[in-house]
């Protein structure tokens, strides 16, 4: 589905309008203070108002000319799956790596992404995933002595 730039702009404008309103309202809960003694809410309040005004201006502007036509949001059919999968992989990594251990999670992470996003052969996948896990472990935990979790399996 094709979209025009101005449609995108309108959505963005609404987003920033909400952001501005949120900060301005929140600022009132923490003291705004006076011009003599600006409080913690001072900047958020005025900045929030400023951004809301700008968002409104953007919105108005977008009702004007249509703007260039943009390609559809996801350029190709399978795109959204890849994007979603990669984000999910990141989130899952963050959740489980202190439980499973850094090395193992890395192995799974690299393996899954290599295999399923732009499918490579199993052989390649295994080689890459294993070497990534090993090298990363050696580099970060042994050489640099960063405190990365070893997980319940102990490595």
């Amino acid at each position: 589905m094709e979209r025009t730039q101005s449609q995108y702009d309108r959505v963005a404008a609404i987003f920033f309008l909400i952001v501005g309103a949120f900060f301005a309202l929140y600022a009132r809960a923490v003291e705004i203070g006076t011009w003599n003694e600006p409080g913690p809410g001072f900047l958020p309040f005025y900045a929030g108002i400023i951004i809301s005004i700008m968002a409104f201006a953007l919105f108005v502007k977008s009702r004007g000319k249509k703007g260039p036509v943009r390609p559809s949001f996801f350029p190709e059919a399978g795109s959204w799956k890849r994007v979603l999968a990669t984000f999910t992989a990141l989130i899952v990594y963050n959740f489980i790596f202190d439980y499973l251990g850094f090395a193992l999670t890395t192995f799974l992470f690299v393996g899954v992404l290599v295999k399923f996003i732009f499918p490579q052969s199993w052989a390649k996948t295994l080689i890459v995933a294993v070497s990534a896990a090993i090298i990363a472990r050696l580099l970060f935990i042994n050489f640099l002595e960063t405190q990365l979790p070893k997980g319940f399996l102990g490595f």
Partner: protein
Amino acid sequence: MDLLNHILLGAQVLFTPGNIFFCFIGVLMGTLVGVLPGLGPTAAIALLLPNTFHVSPVTAIIMLAGIYYGAMYGGSTTSILVNIPGEAASVITCLDGYQMALKGRAGAALGIAAFGSFIAGTISVIGLMLVAPPLAKFALAFGPPEYFSLMLMGIVILIYLASGSILKALMMAVFGLLIGTIGMDSISATQRLTFGLLELSDGVGLIPAIMGLFGVAEVIANVEQEIKREIIATKVKNLLPNLQDWKDSFWPMIRGGILGFFIGILPGPAPVISAFSSYAIEKKLSKHPEKFGTGMIQGVAGPESANNAATGGAFIPLFTLGIPANSVIAILLGAFMIHGIQPGPMLIDKYPDLFWGTIMSMYLGNVMLLVLNLPLIGLWVKVLKVPYPILFPLILLFCLVGVFSLNYSKVEVALMIGFGVFGYLARKFQFEMAPLVLALVIGPMMENNLRLSLVISQGSPWIFIEKPISAAFILVSLALLISPFIPWIGKRRRKLQEKVEGEQI
């Protein structure tokens, strides 16, 4: 003449096997640390500081200074190769440096970055030698109002030269300011938007934000497209910059060096501000400003020189006032004190061998960096040849580990992913990231200085105009903001904008 004697003294101090060795170690560790995204020079210095107790102060300072430069340079490498800035100052290098890499010109970019840093480093060393004391006085003239106006102007310059819509760039900048307020307010100890999470009391970290907006978002954006991009399949010719590159980069490097040096004198995030300003100036002076962002070498030469020169400039407040400009220099200050050296205005007179020895070591350090890194360029470029389907998980992995190892905080990793989502969407909606990042970096300082100024002036906003230096900055900012509306300037900008609209950022 006096200066020559000083140089000789410094050289004498420096060229002992011990000092040269430590200089080398410093530079090496610094580069290594700078290349790994997320780790920073403070880490390396903290690690190596205990080892300096057993050596003389001069040697210690030489090594620690070496780490500082090394890290600055290492950060540029990742910016160019994988579009992930090693630290805030390298963000600008990503813009054109990465594009150059995509076109097979990674070698040239890396080479120019190295040479530019070297030349700029030299300029700043010369500057240090010649003008340290009077410059320090200049820095003293900057108080809260001046700082605020300076930073404001910095943001406005960046916005003015945004390739897209000014309005949108402004919105991103203000958004960055707002995000910067998250955390514990430093003046009143009030928690703002931290949702009870201790990790957020320090505010949204800069590294998670940068890694998310530039690293994660970039990878995801790439993943969207089927790999018909044989990224660096084009043979990487010329590992070094060619003659044309040199001609193009010469003046940007000189300008960047001088600019960076002066900005570096002011305490604060000088390398970042210098890099951004240099980019803005180069774009302004260029005959093809619309090409910036697609791989113009001036966009790498200028900023890289600037941020290195700023590093040198940052030593000035240390040597002349005893005031550290940032936390890295502060550790050096601590090293001075441990060795019983009281920093302050009398330092140069009382300890000439320390001062001149350090200066010469900076020069040597720059040379070593060059020698060390050039052969490595070939190696780095090979890394790029790894097919993207295999490379990208590794890049993501580096991002994850890099962010986590900062503060051992999963919250920050989550933040990075969040920024990744936002960055990805921002690209789609044609919003630029650079104003957001700059605002995030200097926002907290801006706010502090704003509030301080208002307290000093008893609530009167006119203080920003009453003080001459501050007024100058404000004037420039206003001029830049209004100019699009003045017909003949506005038209030029609109033409610029139309050319660029419809292109990916």
